């Protein structure tokens, strides 16, 4: 599926990144590049550190007191762990969608408008309305909710909630979107919708998606990274990884020998 000969523009680069929770090393010496218009999938058995690594990419791990990150992660060439990087702005540029849909217990409108508000992206109410509509449209949710924007976001179905969360992330116009098992709490139909959405958003945002589901990785991503016990075992084009893995461990995992 990935287009073979498009020149790629590097969006994020991680070099020799290690993460420890206290004395427990969760990620060990991982280097990865994320391109401007690709979807990267992280796969690997439970506890191998996929989420941990994903969360280092927008410094969400800062909220875990015991987490220590070493190595270098750059966004557009700028070190995101340097002291003069403003975490708040970083997170606006690198958005995140979580495993469990987590809309705010506010109206649908307010959910989407929250980001633009705190970042002062919209001057007038009309601006804000425009941003909200655009984001909901991009997230493929506009038609379903346009008549009930003032309903609570938590009243939506699971799949809708997850799309609302994507719309919310889109609303601050991020450059990268990180998704941590966005479909694992959803039923197959909702899953399909999200996958479709990822397809549509590709090119506009660089995306990194963690998934337990290998078929999903195969369906949505151009590159796949396979983690095991905190190390990056293999990283390459998705088609290669699934049909012709270089490493024995990758192959064993993909064919279901362990996991």
């Amino acid at each position, binding site marked *: 599926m990935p287009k073979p000969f498009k020149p790629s523009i590097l969006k994020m680069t991680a070099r020799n990144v290690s993460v420890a929770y206290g004395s427990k090393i969760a990620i060990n010496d991982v280097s990865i590049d994320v391109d401007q218009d690709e979807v990267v999938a992280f796969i690997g058995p439970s506890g191998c550190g996929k989420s941990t690594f994903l969360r280092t990419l*927008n410094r969400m791990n800062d909220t875990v007191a015991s987490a220590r990150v070493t190595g270098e992660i750059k966004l557009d060439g700028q070190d995101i762990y340097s002291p003069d990087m403003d975490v708040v702005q970083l997170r*606006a540029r690198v958005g995140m969608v979580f495993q469990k849909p987590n809309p705010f217990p506010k109206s649908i409108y307010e959910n989407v408008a929250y980001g633009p508000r705190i970042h002062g992206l919209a001057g007038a109410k009309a601006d804000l309305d425009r941003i909200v509509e655009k984001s909901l449209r991009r997230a493929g949710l506009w038609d379903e909710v346009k008549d009930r924007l003032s309903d609570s976001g938590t009243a939506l179905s699971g799949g809708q909630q997850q799309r609302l969360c994507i719309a919310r992330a889109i609303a601050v116009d991020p450059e990268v979107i990180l998704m941590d098992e966005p479909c694992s709490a959803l039923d197959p139909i909702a899953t399909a919708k999200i996958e479709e959405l990822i397809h549509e958003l590709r090119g506009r945002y660089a995306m990194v998606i963690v998934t337990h589901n290998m*078929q999903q990785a195969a369906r949505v991503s151009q590159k796949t990274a396979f983690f095991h016990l905190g190390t990056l075992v293999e990283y390459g084009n998705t088609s290669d990884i699934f049909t012709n893995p270089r490493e024995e461990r990758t192959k064993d995992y993909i064919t*279901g020998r362990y996991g």
Partner: protein
Amino acid sequence: MSDTLVPQIPVTNAEPVRRVPTDWTTQAMQSRIRRRYASERRFRFAGLAAVWLSAAFLAYLLITMVMQGASGFVETRVSLPVDLAAAKLPIEPARLVGRGADLALAGAGLEGTVDLAATKAFGKDGTDLLSDGAWAVVRDAIKADPSLLQRRTVFEVPVSSPIDVAAKGNGTRDAEAIVARLKASGALTRGFNAGFLTSADSTDATRVGIWGAFKGSLLTMIVTLLLAFPIGVLSALYLEEYAPKNRWTDLIEVSINNLAAVPSIIFGLLGLAVFLGTFGMPRSAPIVGGLTLALMTMPVIVIAGRNAIKAVPPSIRDAALGIGASPVQVVFHHVLPLALPGILTGTIIGMARALGETAPLLMIGMRAFIAAPPSGLADPATVLPVQIFLWSDQVSRGFVEKTSAAIIVLLVFLLAMNGVAIYLRNRFETRW
């Protein structure tokens, strides 16, 4: 969805083993079942009994208080003819307006006139029949209508405490005899004792009121609330959301958890030694009471606040952080609003406890007799529960019903506060 991606299970073709199921119908099994059910019923009944007995005790307590206290809201009055014209009080009607009125009437010997009228109406011991506050009734009537000074009027004045108690069927033999006599002559009436709700403490059971103590409670609670609520909420936020894991934080946490369970009387000792002793703050003042109770209530609010904050799912914080909200924004935009009902519930419960608290206030002198309601935070005052304690210790029998009546008033407020807290909790018991 290719099957190759999923581990395959070897299919066993072995013939399944048949088995003999347990026989549930045997005599032994059946009687065992019956025994188990019987014990189930006993257990359940024990639970039910525990609940009902607890509730019954509460009911008994409340009913006792209401039965004893209801009569505290009623006063017995006697008709007293007073010939004000004949008394020729030296008062110019012009002085009967404004601030000077009380002074003028007090100085004019009205009290003596009323005593005289009593002796005239009821004989030598007539003054003993009247409440110390009887003349005040006459005074107020004159203030309302100065023309009374020109005639003879029959006033309904409150009777003295022994007579009042006797009229309510609980008095000494002498008093009951007098009551019987007065009743026969139709001079006794009963009425709502408005003074009980509007006046302050007094030495005469018929004149006492809870307004002074109530106002003291109110002022104390204001101080408590203004201090404990913000400090409590802010510390709860700090501890739950920002505090780094270190020794200081542990120390704060241990302090708060322990303060929440420190006996209230210890806070009284603290107030006595620190606020009164070291800082030299005024004795008996609502501000000191409020401070002491605030220290006591603050940990309750912190703990309730922390629980409420903890109940806000972390996913909400992640969501806000994930789109670039700063930690302060996360807390003030999302966490605090969602935790607020829980915090309020905790606050109300903490305040209710403070309102009913007695022991620490005894230590800091809020047990004084003050015949007027306090007008400021530094004015000496007492509070409702202490007033109850003081009255319960009074010699005069008339105070028994007043004590219970004050308890009723206090309970009404506490139950209302608890009710609001429970309502809030039920209303906002959201699980995300």
